[in-house]
């Protein structure tokens, strides 16, 4: 117990230093033109001499001398790269460019880009099979895995994955490919989330199984031990069906791992948190070469969790019942928490397992940990702005869990990678099942005020300030400067490219027909449509909202307010479920089920194909 408390103190101490070092607002205004590297993922060359750093902020792969950290090369890639991997022979480096929908191929001998291949929607990670014939690309928006010919880049097929397919890991023998996904699969309204680990036969490019992950939403990296007997995935276990306001009861998230494989004997969810402190946003996973240790980056807690595998397995075997929410469990197998930089993400073990590299995304550094001592022995600083801008500080605030009671969670828990989480939440302390709200995308928010589904928060400062602190975080730790930075960051989030628009920007015939329905003022019977029942009246302007509240007939007896804020329409195709409480599983259901009296737009005169056209148009927004 003493050791555990001491380790907590190490993390808390590191966080305290961060807070003390907070620079003033005026000192950083001039740094806007230079980009932060924002290292996200790491790789080592087969001989261990070169460290590849995926820099999401600068759209490049930087090649460092692995010993000294000296930058050897910077290779520009596509926009917002999110994942990369080496070919089995180390000759090629593949990079997924999530906003370009491409894969960049880099020759590791020359560090030259040799090809750029088309992938699916928002490619997020990539793995080549053992034979070097096939490339697998996980597509976050496509919810699938694109299978490419590794020689030509030609698409062979796509495999259906979980929603928000994002991370891949090949088994050591190359016989299985494991894929995770960051948004939960669809489930009936107000039931626990469901996720999966998609298991693929990479030789035949077929999904052979789906490991069910009950109650999980948000699965990140996955790793296999060298002997293939142990698999580990980092994940979030949200408690979205009970009021979030009861954070003091632990009703927000549990940070867990799913472990599986012959060494485990079953699929088990293992908590990382402690009774009085949480290790938020588990993201990266690595397993020591001898399998003795599991390392997990905690992106919201700025530390790395170290697990003794033998102890963990002993605990699992001694506890056949579920214990994912028993926060006393972790003391039996977590042996260290190592403080690192801000928002640690990708991690990488050296071939001998002696050194552990951590990509600290939000302070442009790489921590090097001596795995025998479980401490940071070196910090590699990446080229970039020396000062921290207001926007950067806001991003750090967004991604940290330190402001919440017991460090339980941060903004990014529900807005994964600054998006959404696909969940409905019971937010308010008004009883179970009251005022259920669907989580919304937070891109390009300027001009979409007010916030909250009842329109109760006129500005982001109100939305993110007292409300967040009191009702979500159960703390009052934001000062005005922190809040101002956070607002700056959130307002800066751009809208991602819309994959449903044509390259020319013209609407397809179906989309154009849908646009006509969207903007019509007269129904098919020739009757004028009242202003409030015209799609384009409430969903007006470039963002698709007139920023007013209406009763569209979708209220539930459990709602506290009859009128609802008109939600913006940007990237609406991506953000199922729909309606304020997430009761519509698809765009279609908004009108096929939840608009019986035409209160949510005049739509009941439309035929099925006309409704399809309307939806095709909405998907371009």
């Amino acid at each position, binding site marked *: 117990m003493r050791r555990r408390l001491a380790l907590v103190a190490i993390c808390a101490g590191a966080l305290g230093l961060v807070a003390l070092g907070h620079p003033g607002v005026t000192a950083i205004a001039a740094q806007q033109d230079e980009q932060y590297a924002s290292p996200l993922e790491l790789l080592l060359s087969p001989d261990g001499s070169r460290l590849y750093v995926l820099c999401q902020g600068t759209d490049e792969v930087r090649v460092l001398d692995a010993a000294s950290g000296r930058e050897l090369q910077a290779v520009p890639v596509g926009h917002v790269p999110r994942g990369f991997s080496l070919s089995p022979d180390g000759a090629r480096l593949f990079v997924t460019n999530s906003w370009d929908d491409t894969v960049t191929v880099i020759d590791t001998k020359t560090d030259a880009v040799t090809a750029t291949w088309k992938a699916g929607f928002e490619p997020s990670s990539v793995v080549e099979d053992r034979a070097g014939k096939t490339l697998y690309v996980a597509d976050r928006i496509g919810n699938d895995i694109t*299978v490419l010919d590794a020689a030509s880049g030609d698409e*062979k*097929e796509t495999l259906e994955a979980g929603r928000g397919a994002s991370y891949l890991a090949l088994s050591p023998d190359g016989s299985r490919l494991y894929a995770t996904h960051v948004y939960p699969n669809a489930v009936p309204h107000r039931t626990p989330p469901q996720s999966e680990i998609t298991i693929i036969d990479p030789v035949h490019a077929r999904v052979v199984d789906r490991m069910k992950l009950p109650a999980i939403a948000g699965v990140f990296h996955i790793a296999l031990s060298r002997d293939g007997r142990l698999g580990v995935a980092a994940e979030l276990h949200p408690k979205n069906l009970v009021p979030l306001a009861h954070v003091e009861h632990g009703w927000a998230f549990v940070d867990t791992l799913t472990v599986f494989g012959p060494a485990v004997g079953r699929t088990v969810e293992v908590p990382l948190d402690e009774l009085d402190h949480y290790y938020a946003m588990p993201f990266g996973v690595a397993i020591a070469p001898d399998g003795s240790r599991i390392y997990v980056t905690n992106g919201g807690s700025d530390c790395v969790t170290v697990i003794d595998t033998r102890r963990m397995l002993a605990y699992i075997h001694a506890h056949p019942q579920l214990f994912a929410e028993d926060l006393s469990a972790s003391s039996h197998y977590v042996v260290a928490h190592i403080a690192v930089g801000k928002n640690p993400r990708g991690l990488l073990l050296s071939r001998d397992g002696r050194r552990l590299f951590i990509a600290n995304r939000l302070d442009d550094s790489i921590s090097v940990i001596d795995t025998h001592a479980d401490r940071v022995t070196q910090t590699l600083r990446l080229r970039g702005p020396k000062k921290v801008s207001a926007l950067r500080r806001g991003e750090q605030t967004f991604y940290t869990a330190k402001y919440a009671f017991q460090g339980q969670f941060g903004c990014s828990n529900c807005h994964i990678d600054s998006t959404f989480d696909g969940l409905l939440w019971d937010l308010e302390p008004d009883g179970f099942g009251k005022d259920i709200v669907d989580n919304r995308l937070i891109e390009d928010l300027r001009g979409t005020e007010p916030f909250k589904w009842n329109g109760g928060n006129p500005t982001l400062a109100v939305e993110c300030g007292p409300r967040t602190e009191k009702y979500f975080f159960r703390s009052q730790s934001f000062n005005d400067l922190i809040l101002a930075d956070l607002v700056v960051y959130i307002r800066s989030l751009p809208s991602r490219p819309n994959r449903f628009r044509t390259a020319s920007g013209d609407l397809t015939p179906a989309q154009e027909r849908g646009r006509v329905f969207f903007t019509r003022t007269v129904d098919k019977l020739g009757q004028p449509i009242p202003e409030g029942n015209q799609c384009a009246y409430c969903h007006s302007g470039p963002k698709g909202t007139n920023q007013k509240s209406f009763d569209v007939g979708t209220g539930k007896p459990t709602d506290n307010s009859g009128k609802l804020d008109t939600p913006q329409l940007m990237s609406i195709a991506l953000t199922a479920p729909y309606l304020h409480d997430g009761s519509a599983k698809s765009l279609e259901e908004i009108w*096929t089920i939840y608009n019986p009296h035409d209160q949510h737009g005049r739509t009941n005169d439309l035929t099925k*194909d006309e409704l*399809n056209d309307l939806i095709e148009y909405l998907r371009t927004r």
Partner: protein
Amino acid sequence: MNKAWIVGALMAAAASLPGQATAHPASAHRAGAVHAAIATGNVPAMPRFRFENFTTANGLPDDHVFSVLVDGDRVWAGTNNGLAVQENGKWKTYTTADGLAHRAVTSLALDKRNGDVWAGTMGGLSRISGGRIDSFTQLNSGLSNDVVYGVSIEGENVWVATAAGACRLNTRTGEWSLYNERNTPMNEIWVYGVSAAPDKVYYAVWGSGLLELNEKTGTWNKYDDPDGENEAVVLRDQGLIHEITTSVSYVDSVVWVATYFGDSHYDGRNWHNFLTKDSGLPSNFTNTIKGLDRNRAWFGTDKGLAYFDGTNWAVYRPALDTGKPQMTVRDAAGHVTEIPVATAPAHNYILGIDFQGADIWVATAKGLSHGVYQH
């Protein structure tokens, strides 16, 4: 009449002249498979099978089997009470509790690229992928109607035949496109069957003939019975045999069409029709048709399973009078010979057909049958 057809028939007739032991090199009933079929006397060699029948007694969820699909070693059976799959000799059943859109599975299609199975049901369309089932209905998706009679996969598109028009799902973009009386020459919207290829998609529209979509031009063609509503066949081989089409199979640039009043073969220029009175077809009431290539096809009728090799016919069924296993072969001259057999499909009412190498699987109204190829 189609000249090529006449030539083919004459050649076939010559090959089976009395006194000649015919060993047809084309006796393989399935493209790519070579069967060492042995002719018996003057009887053309036709594929023979030992039928193994599956019912609820063997693990099927229901005896009424609407559809069958083979994917390598896996065999899928769409029944009146769930979707069953046989793997390693054992049947597993998916039901609505697993996410299946409806218990009655009317049609099945395989996405050969990734192994996903698509099931048309009486309550929507389901995708079975790696054990996970996602269902699309007229309420939660752009599917035109929940009553799905047919499904066919080509590339990234899923083509669907429903009781209220046809539709296409683009699995990459999620876009649904609907085809009905407003944007095609479809007179009726009761679409029973679909067969998709890279160049063309064919829909069998119950009461509205055959619809053809040219995918390159996006244009539609409609093929009708030149006799119109007249049930008598006045203009033989001048067009589609009947407007009430039930099934379609497009292969090798030839389309095979089943109706409740005979079947048709169309090569893009000429039609050839099959009726019981002048072919080996056991019944004009045909539920399903599967073309193997330009010349060969299988027919699922209400009076048995039939195979046409381009010249000769074979029928496999329990005999209509005794119920005993029966196989008959009809040669080009119209001579019918009964072949002694010990087994037959589970029932005469045939609803689905698929192939597993040289073997055949048959969905019937009273069980699923596996025809193990003998010679």
